[in-house]
């Protein structure tokens, strides 16, 4: 791998190597630019993916070098429901390894639907007083980049003609994953109830593709790295191509604490802590911030200077605001015959009829219902049995025997409206392990969001009953406290007073700073953000490379 001296000015520093950063690194280095990628996490098993194994106990206790997620007691964070409450220690955690969250995610790759870019204008069910706004770009503008992302990353799925699924100009490059028993039951229930069940698009190869093997249905999937490299993560798709250009260096365990700016208001590079917590400066002609929907905003807020006293790129005061952390609803059921859900990918079929909001329901909200059911052995044994099952003794053993492999779960991914009061900022009291102010999350979902979750909980029960379940149970819905799907904290827009970046991801206030990750999302879709982040990244990279070639990186467009 190319190594740049830190004294040299490179063309781009990319902060983060996940869904957004991986694509930016590959596209910019292939376009001829020098790129340093700074990844907060370690290497994981980058380049030795065959060493990921199905050891659940070990995976819960990975070494610091191989861990895959951030650690809320080092990447400390706090949480409160509102400004009056005192923040308490939080459990917010996200992908933190070379490849970011794409290394371990469930791999759902849904596009946003065309109307999701203009919901604020089109949808009369949206209550007043929220931060719902139209995007500065349309689905039609983004559509070619969705296709590009699907083909370059390797997405499996089925193009369907349905008002509940985004239209596609091109097929998926790979057929959908095999139907699981949970999917078969979902299809059967949907047929009975007059609903639409479709295979979910997944960043998981179903045939060999671009030098990688197809999924072998090993089963231990989400939360683990893929040992046959069938999951189309940034680590096995984009980053190796970037490194192969000879113009891209990835530095793992590099935790950026500041994006530096000069008096003219241009960024000049970054300061980061290396693995030994030594401060390193890296100069760059431009910076691409892809640190994720919560950390990108925090880093801007940490990057205060005389010129940017409220944090970098924050003249609007909106950096960190409109946080959407992601809500859901679930219901579980037991069936007479074995489903053996431990074989195959975690998520397959989905019911999509309730994706759009509907005034008849009496509130704004929509979502997707996905069939799942997998329980790892330890999860099942420790606390995965149905309510009321004995915790030990003959009854416990009987329940273990009878319930294992007989369970199906419907997991709903639903809307959460952006609210100005929901945000990421810097905790005034708590510091992280590097001595920096910890991330503070303030979040309470809109009442409609809660009603929507309850709607999906009830619909999930109906579907499971229609599928012939013997026993159904559904935990009460609860408001989010953070998670890997954070979005919205540096929203995109045309007006510098009401948004942080423009439609090409350039910070309104800083001409050579670009933000390319979930933080630019104006609305959250149905809580399946990754494919939209990837499409946006391909589009952003094209425009940034053009600007760099024209020499307008440091000037206004």
């Amino acid at each position, binding site marked *: 791998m190319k190594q740049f001296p830190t004294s040299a000015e490179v063309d781009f520093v990319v902060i983060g190597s996940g869904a957004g950063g991986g694509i930016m690194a590959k596209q910019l280095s292939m376009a001829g630019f020098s790129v340093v990628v700074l990844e907060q996490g370690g290497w994981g098993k980058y380049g030795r993916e065959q060493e990921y194994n*199905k*050891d*659940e*106990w*070990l995976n*819960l*206790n*990975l*070494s610091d070098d*191989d861990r895959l*997620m951030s*650690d*809320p*007691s080092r990447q400390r964070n706090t949480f409160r429901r509102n400004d009056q409450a005192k923040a308490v220690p939080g*459990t*917010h*955690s996200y992908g933190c390894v070379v490849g970011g969250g794409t290394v371990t995610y469930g791999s759902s790759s849904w596009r946003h639907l065309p109307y999701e870019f203009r919901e604020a204008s089109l949808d009369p069910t949206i209550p007043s007083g929220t931060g719902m706004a139209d995007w500065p770009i349309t689905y039609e503008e983004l559509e070619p980049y969705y296709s590009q992302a699907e083909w370059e990353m390797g997405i499996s799925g089925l193009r369907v003609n349905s008002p509940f699924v985004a239209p596609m100009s091109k097929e998926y490059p790979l057929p959908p994953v*095999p*139907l*699981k*028993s949970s*999917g*078969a*039951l979902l*299809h*059967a229930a949907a*047929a*009975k109830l007059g609903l639409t069940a479709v295979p979910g698009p997944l960043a998981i190869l179903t045939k060999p593709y671009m030098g990688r093997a197809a999924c*072998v*249905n*090993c*089963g231990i999937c989400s*939360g683990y790295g893929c040992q046959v490299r069938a999951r189309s993560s940034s680590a096995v798709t984009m980053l190796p191509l970037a490194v192969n250009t000879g113009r891209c260096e990835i530095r793992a365990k590099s935790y950026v604490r500041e994006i530096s700016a000069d008096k003219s208001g241009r960024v000049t590079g970054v300061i980061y802590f290396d693995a030994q917590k030594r401060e390193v400066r890296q100069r760059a002609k431009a910076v691409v911030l892809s640190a994720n929907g919560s950390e990108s905003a925090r880093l801007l807020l940490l990057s205060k200077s005389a010129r940017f006293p409220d944090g970098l790129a924050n003249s609007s005061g909106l950096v960190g605001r409109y946080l959407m952390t992601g809500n859901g609803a679930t219901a579980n059921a037991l*069936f007479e*015959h*074995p*489903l*053996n*859900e*431990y*074989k*195959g990918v975690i998520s397959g079929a989905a019911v999509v009829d309730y994706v759009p909001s509907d005034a008849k329901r009496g509130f704004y909200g929509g979502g997707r219902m996905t069939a799942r059911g997998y329980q790892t*052995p*330890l*999860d*099942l*044994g*420790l*606390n995965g049995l149905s309510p009321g099952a004995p*915790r*030990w*003794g*003959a009854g*416990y*053993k009987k329940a*273990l*025997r009878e319930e*294992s*492999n007989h369970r199906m779960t419907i997991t709903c991914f639903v809307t959460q409206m952006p609210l100005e009061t929901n945000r990421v900022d810097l905790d005034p009291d708590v510091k992280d392990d590097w001595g920096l102010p910890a991330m503070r999350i303030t979040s309470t979902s809109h009442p409609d969001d809660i009603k929507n979750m309850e709607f999906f909980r009830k619909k999930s029960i109906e579907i499971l009953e229609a599928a*012939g379940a013997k026993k159904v149970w559904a935990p009460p819905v609860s408001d989010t406290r953070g998670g890997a799907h954070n979005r919205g904290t540096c929203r995109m827009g045309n007006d510098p007073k009401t948004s942080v970046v423009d439609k090409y991801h350039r910070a309104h206030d800083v001409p050579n700073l670009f933000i390319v990750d979930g933080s630019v999302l104006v609305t959250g879709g149905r809580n399946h953000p990754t494919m939209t982040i990837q499409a946006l990244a391909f589009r952003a990279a094209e425009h940034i490379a053009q600007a760099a070639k024209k020499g307008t990186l440091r000037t206004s467009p």
Partner: protein
Amino acid sequence: MSTKRRSRRRFLVDSVTGLNAAWIAANYHGILAAQEHVRQATQAGNLPQLAFFTVAQAAEIEAMTAQIIPTDESPGAREARCVYFIDRALSTFARGSQPAYIQGLRELETQTQQLYPDAGKFSALTSAQQVETLTRIEKTPFFNLVRTHTVIGFLARPVHGGNYNKIGWELIGYDDSLNHKPPFGYYDAQKENLP
């Protein structure tokens, strides 16, 4: 393991898996050390040697594990060698739980003698008496600790010292092959016949 480190692990475990158990916190190097213990011990003979418990203590804990996952028409925690998993854990990654076990064994003895003054040892009770005794302490941290360790020993990969001959996985019908082919279960195999 320092308190700070333990709390780190707890955070991680809770947030990543939703498993709500402080005591399943461990660390990677400790787990590898435990594996090595298991490998060496089982090379030497049929049953592994005890590393932490005395033989008498192991008998008490084993009797507890055998009530948590009893042996009926199929093998249980005893046959899966959960007590050996726990023994390795306490001498490696779960060293921090040693005092809890020592104190817990004392409580078990006290409880046993209160209920059955003539018995002396928990492991000497009849099965019904053992169930009665454990029902009295089933809400205690010690019981929950042993329960958690028993379940992990029963269902984690055999390299960690329990789940002997994949007894635990056999009970839950888990096949750890790397490669599976559809149909996976009853309903996808029968999909043509579904309603």
